[in-house]
């Protein structure tokens, strides 16, 4: 744990109650390593350690708290602030239906998370509706349909849309929203195909989709095990679409989750939920204090 590591490097402390510049240097090197091992981005780690350096010299520590612990608390509190300490719920339109677009890299967990979100909204009586707009991946529509059935939420996909406009994702989604309105749904969750942010054609599709259906939320669904690429992914999706919220998935594993910091740092968008399992109730509200603890462990 960070506190043990810091206690280790700061163990030759004099009994005077202030951290010297050399001690701070040692401590910061350790903090830097911890952050990089936790997949926090190079740039953010650098800025973070830089800011700490200015504030840490001259920290006075009392007799009850070791300097290592003091420094850890310092880092922890700073991380919580950087992760966005105000809770950020989903936005809802005053005029139904609210459209929520799920976007992100291949395999990040969009389809599963779309269904989890639908289950949650159903419990919250927000009358959800699912649109299967991934027309590329084999059996993607099948997957969402089965998930929709499991949570008891209607799904509109290529099968309902018919093959006339089969290849146009935008017209499919528009059809889905019309069907949702007809069914008196108040929230529409649109599952899209995974794509790389450097795929111009696929990003173009998302841009067209966004301008056609003006979603209130564009949620970036990102894999919690992502490393340094989190910055590039987040930048790309944000510059193209404007991300309004982030869902970090697969945090039931042992990935430290530094990507959370990178993604929030780059987009400024709040992390709204975390995926913590494959079951459809495995969606939790984001807790920055828990996340900070996980990154620093």
């Amino acid at each position: 744990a960070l506190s043990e590591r810091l206690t280790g490097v700061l163990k030759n402390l004099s009994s005077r109650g202030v951290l010297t510049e050399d001690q701070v240097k040692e401590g910061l090197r350790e903090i830097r390593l911890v952050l990089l091992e936790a997949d926090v981005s190079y740039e953010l780690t650098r800025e973070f350690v830089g800011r700490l350096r200015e504030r840490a010299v001259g920290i006075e520590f009392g007799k009850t708290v070791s300097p290592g612990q003091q420094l850890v608390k310092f880092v922890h509190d700073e991380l919580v602030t950087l992760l966005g300490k105000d809770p950020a719920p989903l936005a809802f339109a005053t005029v139904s239906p609210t459209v929520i677009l799920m976007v992100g890299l291949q395999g990040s967990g969009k389809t599963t998370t779309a269904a989890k979100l639908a289950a949650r909204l159903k419990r919250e009586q927000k009358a959800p509706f699912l649109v299967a707009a991934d027309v590329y991946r084999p059996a993607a529509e099948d997957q969402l349909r089965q998930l929709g059935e499991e949570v008891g939420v209607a799904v509109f996909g290529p099968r309902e849309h018919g093959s006339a406009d089969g290849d146009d994702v935008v017209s499919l989604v528009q059809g889905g929203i019309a069907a949702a309105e007809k069914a008196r749904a108040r929230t529409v969750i649109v599952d899209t195909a995974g794509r790389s942010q450097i795929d111009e054609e696929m990003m173009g599709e998302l841009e067209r989709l966004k301008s056609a259906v003006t979603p209130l939320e564009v949620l970036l669904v990102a894999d919690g095990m992502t490393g340094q690429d989190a910055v590039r992914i987040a930048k790309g999706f944000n510059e193209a679409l404007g991300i309004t919220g982030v869902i970090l998935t697969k945090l039931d594993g042992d990935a430290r989750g530094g990507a959370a910091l990178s993604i929030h740092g780059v987009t400024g968008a709040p992390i709204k939920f975390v995926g913590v399992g494959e079951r459809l109730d495995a969606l939790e509200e984001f807790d920055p204090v828990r996340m900070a603890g996980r990154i620093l462990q």
Partner: protein
Amino acid sequence: AVLVKGVDHEMLEDVERVLIEADFGPATFSLVENLEQQIRRGGLKTEDAFRGWLVDEIAGMFGAGEAGELHFAADGPTVVLILGVNGVGKTTQAAKLAHRLLRSGKSVLLAAADTFRPGATEQLAIWADRLGLPVVRGTRGGDPAAVAYDAVEAATARGIDVAIIDTAGRLHTESGLMKELQKIVRVVGRRCDGAPHESFLVLDGTVGQNAMQQGKSFAAAVPISGLIVTKLDGTARGGAVVCLQREIGVPVRFLGVGERLEDLDPFEPRRFAERLLG
């Protein structure tokens, strides 16, 4: 020692940044220190020389390449197991491997041993259909080891060269799921001597330092004969695999570079090192 006047610290910092941002990890620092020493000793004088040295060092961290060939069984079907955490590209890579084998003249059978995830069997069945291949399936929620067993049975009975078994994504931290994987390995091993002849751990190219935990945990649970790193057609560099493969002594065999059947490259260390350095 002869000191080279002013080692360019900005240049070294750039190298550090490039490696970290490629997910090379904490091993970056000692590599850059090494580079600095080489420069100080006067061995490397130009930017090209620095880069050449880095490519050599990184490529040298991999064993000798095992370029893209599968290790076939001496007789009977070759059993290939595909495993890894959720969403990394197992099912797609299983299809790509089948495609590659077909093109080299082998007969192939696919097994949909992910009996858990919605749409999993349908997904592999569509790939099998596109490839004109038989697919062995089980019932949703059924025992994946039974599907694996049936696949080996079928391949043996029909004289098929290779049986590729796709499994469900599973986190290495789920002991129940790791036990399920061990059972699959045991069951095919009993039905066919030496099976699985290949077991590929598939890693997402975007994975960070968690790659180490994944690799170590899977390798401790079942024999792993190779690593496949996917999604390298994006901006990810896949650097985390360098230290991992050295740590667990498992070679990188293939790279996934897209979503189509042909998007599978045999692993080549120098080319990988070049790309890592940008």
